[in-house]
C-alpha cells in the first residue's frame, strides 16, 4: 500500500450543519450531531430516489457532492458500522408478527444496497465495495481505498455514514451515535500536497478511552482540522492516522 495519501476533496452532511464553514467550526469544537434534517438528493432521479431512506439519502448526497461529474470509473468504498439497522429491525419485527415481507424492503436490506442504488442511478461500472468493521470501519474503508490506489486507481471515493441506533440496540453500543455522512476523494500524494498516513500495529496494554463521538466522526474531524495524529484501539489493533506537514 502507498505510504502516504492525499485528500483531494471532502463533503459532509449532518443535521444542523449547512456548509463548509459550519463543518470547520464543528471540527474546532466537535459535538454529537443529531436531528431530523434530510438532504434533498435531487441529483438522483425520483423513481430511484423513492427507494432510498434517510440514512441512504445522507450517504448518497455526500457521494454525489464529492464525486461530482468526475469520470464514471472512479472506484467507490462505502463504509458504515451499523448500516441500515433501523430497516432490518423493522423487517425482523414484521417477521416476528408473521407479516409478509415487503419485497422492496427485502431488496434493500443488504449492507451494500445503498451503494448499489448509487451505482445504478449513475450508471457506474467501476469497483464498488461496502465495508463494516466495528469502531474501525473508517479505517477499513481507507485500507480498501489504499489497496485500490496501489492497483492503479487514480483516485477512490470513500463514503462513511451512520445513523442513530434503534433503542433496542443501545445497550450494546460502545460509542455515542450521531446522524452523519461524509465523503472524500483519496488520491496518491502530489508534490505540493499535504499527505496523510494510516498505520496499524498490535494494540498496547492501555485501556481505550471512552469516546465522545462515534469514531467515524473523529476521523472526519481529524481530516478537516484535527491535530497531527489520531489513534484508535480496536480489538487487537492500534490504528494511527498521521498528518505530514
Amino acid at each position, binding site marked *: 500500500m502507498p505510504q502516504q495519501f492525499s485528500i483531494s476533496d471532502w463533503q459532509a452532511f449532518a443535521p444542523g450543519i449547512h456548509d463548509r464553514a459550519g463543518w470547520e467550526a464543528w471540527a474546532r469544537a466537535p459535538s454529537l450531531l443529531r436531528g431530523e434534517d434530510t438532504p434533498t438528493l435531487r441529483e438522483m432521479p*425520483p423513481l430511484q430516489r*423513492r427507494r432510498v431512506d434517510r440514512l441512504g439519502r445522507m450517504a448518497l448526497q455526500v457521494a454525489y457532492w464529492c464525486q461530482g461529474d468526475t469520470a464514471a470509473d472512479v472506484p467507490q468504498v462505502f463504509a458504515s458500522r451499523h448500516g441500515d439497522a433501523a430497516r432490518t429491525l423493522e423487517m425482523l419485527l414484521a417477521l416476528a408478527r408473521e407479516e409478509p415481507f415487503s419485497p*422492496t424492503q427485502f*431488496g434493500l436490506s443488504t449492507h451494500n444496497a445503498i451503494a448499489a442504488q448509487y451505482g445504478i442511478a449513475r450508471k457506474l461500472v467501476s469497483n464498488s465495495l461496502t465495508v463494516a468493521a466495528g469502531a474501525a470501519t473508517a479505517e477499513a474503508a481507507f485500507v480498501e481505498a489504499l489497496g485500490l490506489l496501489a492497483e492503479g486507481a487514480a483516485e477512490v471515493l470513500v463514503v462513511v455514514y451512520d445513523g442513530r441506533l434503534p433503542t433496542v440496540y443501545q445497550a450494546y453500543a460502545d460509542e455515542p451515535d450521531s446522524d452523519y455522512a461524509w465523503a472524500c476523494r483519496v488520491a496518491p500524494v502530489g508534490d505540493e500536497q499535504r499527505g496523510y498516513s494510516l498505520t496499524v500495529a498490535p494494540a498496547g496494554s492501555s485501556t481505550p478511552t471512552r469516546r465522545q463521538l462515534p469514531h467515524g466522526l473523529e476521523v472526519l474531524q481529524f481530516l478537516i482540522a484535527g491535530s497531527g495524529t489520531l489513534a484508535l484501539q480496536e480489538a487487537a489493533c492500534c490504528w494511527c492516522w498521521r498528518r505530514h506537514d
Partner: protein
Amino acid sequence: MQTLEAEIKELIISTMALEDTTPDDIDSAAPLFNEGLGLDSIDALELGLALHKRYGLTLSADSEATRRHFSSVQALCAFVAANRHQPQSSLPVGQLA
C-alpha cells in the same frame, strides 16, 4: 365515495412511494410497468402484496394472467372489481400502513 379507479391510483402512489405524483398524473389506460409510470419488477411484487393486504387477492407471480391484470390501472380495476373479497376495507389508503 371514492371510485375504485381513484382508490387504486392512491394505492399505487403510496405503495410505490411515488413522491410528487398525484392520481391525476396517472393515465388509467397507460402501461404501469416499464413505459408509462416506469415501475419495475420489484414494484410488481410490492403491488401484488398490497393487493393481497387490501383486497384479499392472490396473484401468481409471472403468469400471463397477472401480466394482463397489471397492464394498466383500468385492467387492474376490472380484476379487483371482479375478484375482491375480505378484507373489505373502507379505510383511506394512508391509514393502512
